[in-house]
């Protein structure tokens, strides 16, 4: 620990700190241009200069690079220091008069205007290296065309943070300084487009003046990382909170895009975390947990509307899925609750198409159960957010449930238009002037009896529910079956809706079939109850169709022993006979059929019983 005095106040601190860190922690504001908590100190802008009195000697030092020492006396705003800062601001303003950052600083320090003139050159000394045109500060001769790879254009205050970030932190080094003195500038090596730049955008984000154009560093558009939760309507960073309701509510790092995994550098997040909660060296762990019951609740996926190309998803920009519109109307979504078209205009008319990927021989035959209700909900919300004309195109209005149909009635009162008919296509081909620039929904209005064309600004596709893409893999894992639609098969639709054919494995939620939230919750409770019964009971009830050994007949040939998938057959060395553990036996009967001497029998499915059955079924014509 070290004791020092800053502006007359005594402060104790760790000896690794710099004077700047200590002063800032004590609430003293020292201006800086080239300092940043993620970067090692550089000491180039000189704004953080303070007066240091140590062992009788007074000197001016930059507080960002000066480590604290016992007995230091620091003055951060003395007359001498302020004079330095004022002149420094004026000098920088002469270089970049339009810079907001500098102007703010000038105002804070108390500099009314800049007394220096922009730097002029001597024409006779010009050797047309064009360095000046790149800085745009020294128009020595008629500026030639600015080379396209120059990075720090006018507005660059040469703080060097982008260079240090790219080099020291990101460990890429695509940017550097070139030139001496007034000709110093930020650029890529040889002023050529950098092949090392990974367009992470760190330089543009740290630049205090926005002087960096990423395209000049690497002339290709950076690939945005679309946010999965926002369905690509917004972008995210490699480190991100998956969604606001995530449990646990902590950010995650995506190793595919995180710079640390690419270059070993950055780790800005780790350095800034106050509680050291970030560990880039974390590895996947495979944990084995022994359980007695499993509840499969693996959910559903939405229908991909690209399979119904006649609705124009992915072709016309203003065709959205319902899930995307959910994000649009959400106040914490990518647009903050503003429902706009892709070009930012407010839609004046919106069409919601029901049964996209449901009740359809061409795609999915079943009814997805929830879409009518959520389409009505969206219609209501969209009416609130946009005052647009709303059109719902339905086949049947399926609103079972508490207050559901009443809600439908409310919408009718809100003057939402309901058109009964399956939409044939969405097109942008206008037949009349009113249809220009809009999306036209072609539908047979079955109640009115003719085909209609309804122009709207925005189309919302109410996509249905489908089994997850990996449903077949998951079901094999748990020894379950799937129904013909691909949802997991329950043991009995009425009598055992949450059980599967495998004891101890239960189903809950939309993985078993499309259902809404109240039903899912109820089913989940049922599955949990079934599971708990199994756990609580303390014993398991077994089917009686187990196999047993006829000891006298058994020859000890051991051919049954490897056959049992449950290892229920053991060999009694003493007796030299096979022995079946009835608790393990599941009653498949494979061993029964395989025994060469016929010494294994199965209860309920004895050979004699089967023979009788055969005789029985063949007793008539």
């Amino acid at each position: 620990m070290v004791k020092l005095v800053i502006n007359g106040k005594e402060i104790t601190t760790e000896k690794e700190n710099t004077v700047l860190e200590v002063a800032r922690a004590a609430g003293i504001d020292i201006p800086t241009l080239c300092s940043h908590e993620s970067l090692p100190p550089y000491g180039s802008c000189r704004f953080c200069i303070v007066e240091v009195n140590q062992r009788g000697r007074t000197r001016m030092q930059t507080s960002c690079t000066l480590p604290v020492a016992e007995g230091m006396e620091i003055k951060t705003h003395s007359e001498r220091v302020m004079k330095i800062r004022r002149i420094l601001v004026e000098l920088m303003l002469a270089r970049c008069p339009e810079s907001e950052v500098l102007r703010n600083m000038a105002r804070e320090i108390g500099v009314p205007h800049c007394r220096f003139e922009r730097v002029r050159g001597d024409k006779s000394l010009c050797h047309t290296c064009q360095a000046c045109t790149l800085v745009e500060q020294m128009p020595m001769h008629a500026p030639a065309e600015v080379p396209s790879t120059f990075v720090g254009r006018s507005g660059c205050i040469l703080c060097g943070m982008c260079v240090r970030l790219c080099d020291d932190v990101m460990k890429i080094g695509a940017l550097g300084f070139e030139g001496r003195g007034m000709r110093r500038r930020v650029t890529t090596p040889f002023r050529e487009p950098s092949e090392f730049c990974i367009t992470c955008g760190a330089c543009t984000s740290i630049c205090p003046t926005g002087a960096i154009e990423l395209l000049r560093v690497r002339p290709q558009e950076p690939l945005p990382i679309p946010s999965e939760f926002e369905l690509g309507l917004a972008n995210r960073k490699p480190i991100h909170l998956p969604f606001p309701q995530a449990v646990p509510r902590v950010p995650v790092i995506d190793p595919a895009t995180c710079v640390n995994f690419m270059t070993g550098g950055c780790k800005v997040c780790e350095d800034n975390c106050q509680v050291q909660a970030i560990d880039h060296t974390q590895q996947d762990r495979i944990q084995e947990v022994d359980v007695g019951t499993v509840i499969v609740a693996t959910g559903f996926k939405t229908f991909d509307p690209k399979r119904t190309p006649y609705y124009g998803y992915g072709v016309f920009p203003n065709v959205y899925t319902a899930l995307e519109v959910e994000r649009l109307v959400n106040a914490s979504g990518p647009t903050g609750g503003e429902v706009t078209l892709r070009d930012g205009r407010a839609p004046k008319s919106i069409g919601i198409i029901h049964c996209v990927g449901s009740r359809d021989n061409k795609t999915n035959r079943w009814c997805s159960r929830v879409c009518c209700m959520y389409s009505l909900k969206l219609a209501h919300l969209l009416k609130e957010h946009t005052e647009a004309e709303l059109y719902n195109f339905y086949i049947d209005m399926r609103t079972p449930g508490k207050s559901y149909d009443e809600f439908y009635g409310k919408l009718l009162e809100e003057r939402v238009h309901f058109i009964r008919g399956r939409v044939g296509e969405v097109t942008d081909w206008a037949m009349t002037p009113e249809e220009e620039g809009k999306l036209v929904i072609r539908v047979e209005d079955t109640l009115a009896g003719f085909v209609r064309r309804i122009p709207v600004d925005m189309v919302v596709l109410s996509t249905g529910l489908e089994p997850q893409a990996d449903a077949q893999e998951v079901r094999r894992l748990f020894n379950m079956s799937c129904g013909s639609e691909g949802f997991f098969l329950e043991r009995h639709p009425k009598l055992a809706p949450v059980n599967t054919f495998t004891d101890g494995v239960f189903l809950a939620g939309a993985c078993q079939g499309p259902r809404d939230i109240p039903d899912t919750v109820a089913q989940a409770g049922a599955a949990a109850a079934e599971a708990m019964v199994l756990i609580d009971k303390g014993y398991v009830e077994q089917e009686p169709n187990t196999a047993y050994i006829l000891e006298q007949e058994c020859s000890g040939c051991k051919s049954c022993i490897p056959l049992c998938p449950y290892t229920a057959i053991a060999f009694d060395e003493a007796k030299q006979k096979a022995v079946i553990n009835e608790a393990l036996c599941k009653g498949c009967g494979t061993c029964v059929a395989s025994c060469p001497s016929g010494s294994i029998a199965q209860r309920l499915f004895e050979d004699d019983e089967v023979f009788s059955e055969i005789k029985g079924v063949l007793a008539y014509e």
Partner: protein
Amino acid sequence: MATRLTSCGELAAYRKTVAAKRDPNRTCVTVCGGTGCRACQGLDVAAAFRQAFQEHALEGKVDLRVTGCLGFCEHGPVVTLRPKGLIYVKVTAADAKEIVEKTLLKGEEMERLFIKDPQTKKRLRTREEIPFYKHQMPVIFGANFDLDPQSIDDYLYVGGYTALVKALTTMTPELVIDEVTKSGLRGRGGAGFPTGTKWASCRKVESNGKYIVCNADEGDPGAYANRSLMEGNPHSVLEGMIIASYAIGAHEGFIYVRAEYPLAVELLAKAIEDARALGLLGKNILGTGHSFDLEINRGGGAFVCGESTALMASIEGRAGEPRAKHIHMVERGLWDRPTVLNNVETWSNIPLIVNRGSQWFTAIGTGDVSKTPWGGSKGTKIFSLVGKVNNTGLVEVPMGATLRQIIYDIGGGIKGGKKFKGVQTGGPSGGILGVQHLDLPIDYDQLVEVGSMMGSGGMIVMDEDTCMVDFARYFLAFLEDESCGKCTPCREGVVQMRQLLEQIGAGKATMAHLDLLQDLAEVVRDASLCQLGVTAPNPVLTTLAYFREEYEAHIRNGKCPAGVCKALVSYLIDAEKCNGCTMCARNCPSGAIEGDKKQPHKIVLEKCSKCGICYEVCKFHAVARN
């Protein structure tokens, strides 16, 4: 060639064989081969001598030695004759033949080749007679007279590498450091940090490797003392570094030479090669168990690389930019290892101190270093005396010599009999001192007190025809070019100062500009990152302090008293005094003078470029300067 010597005994034996082959009484002609004299065709003179020797069958009877710089640069090419010690100046190749025929064969001294005293008009023959040499104390530089820089045998003959043997065999490393500290030797690069103290700090640090570095990046315009030392006596630098490596425990070293000194690089490389071949560099030097070897690094053309941290960055292969120095280089320098960096001249002092002892050294110079080496400035300093003096060249004087002694006694006074106006010490970062400082004893602390600095020893003398405003502007333009650009005050401030000075020189400034200039200069001095920036305002601050009336004349009266600032100068021919000799018209480069022969001439002001040539050539003082 020579085989590697593996013990000090072998070295002593080798030295004897070298001495045995030499006859100190044999006639020797030395031709100065320093860069300055080379530029005056000095090598042609040497070739002419060789040819003349051949023609007169003098090979084997008379030696010819091409030496390094002898310091008398104004009057080169310089030729000396031993053992008489005659000094011939401004010798041409044709003269060489004559010298051989007359002086060597007949013993006739050639009066016309002796230097003439400007006051007494007498011809001066030897170093003892020539005031330029008489008033110097060339303990270091004097060796150049006896050395062919390419011959290690020459160096051994005059006692070279005896200090190394003494240190390696009779002194512990601590003793060496102690001796250097007691001598009060302070860094000759300009900062004047006590060398022994630096070495002691470095020795204390534990590390897996230490470095010895020589700063030969002499960037000051007008300073060439380091160059001449390297070109004249490269082995003295090597010897000093090897001794230091022993004292500190380093085994690797670098000599950072600016690339603009190709001759120095060449001669240093040869010296290193020869030293290695003899076993004075490399593994197990002279069987003492100490190993040390050197490498030459060439600078890339940046003045700022003379700054220690920038120099190290350059050796490491990074851009030459300085860094904050709160971590000292003796603890973490090159590649984060303890490093001792010293100037060329500092290194050359080391063998002398080891051989002759610290007491001999403290007897020369100012102050009292018995308690601390900061207490005074000991030993000698080599200055590059240039500018408006009669004897420009390299002078070595004890610390404490006054400016008057250097400029007048040694330098021979102001050229053309003009008035002394000022002298800049310490290169472009040095301050400009005036008449009132002529009796200032030169040492580190006194110079800093008056706002200047010792620097690397550049001394530029100015006369009444130098405009201080323009002079300051010139150096600021130099520094503007050389600033690395990392820190705001230096990068922006130096340029702005230069611009302000230009405005003043153009007559477009107000008194407010003067105040702004003063403030700006102070800020640049206080806020810059490295010494380049910190000392950059010295020309401005000192001229403002000592020559303020000149600034005010520019601003208030719109006049440049020295007649340099073109915007404020005009030339006029006084028709009464002009007799129409057409001298001015014929010399005018712009063709701006009209007038027939024998008629009064007139200057056409629109065409006049203010060069001042008419003013210089008119013998009748008919051209007036405003």
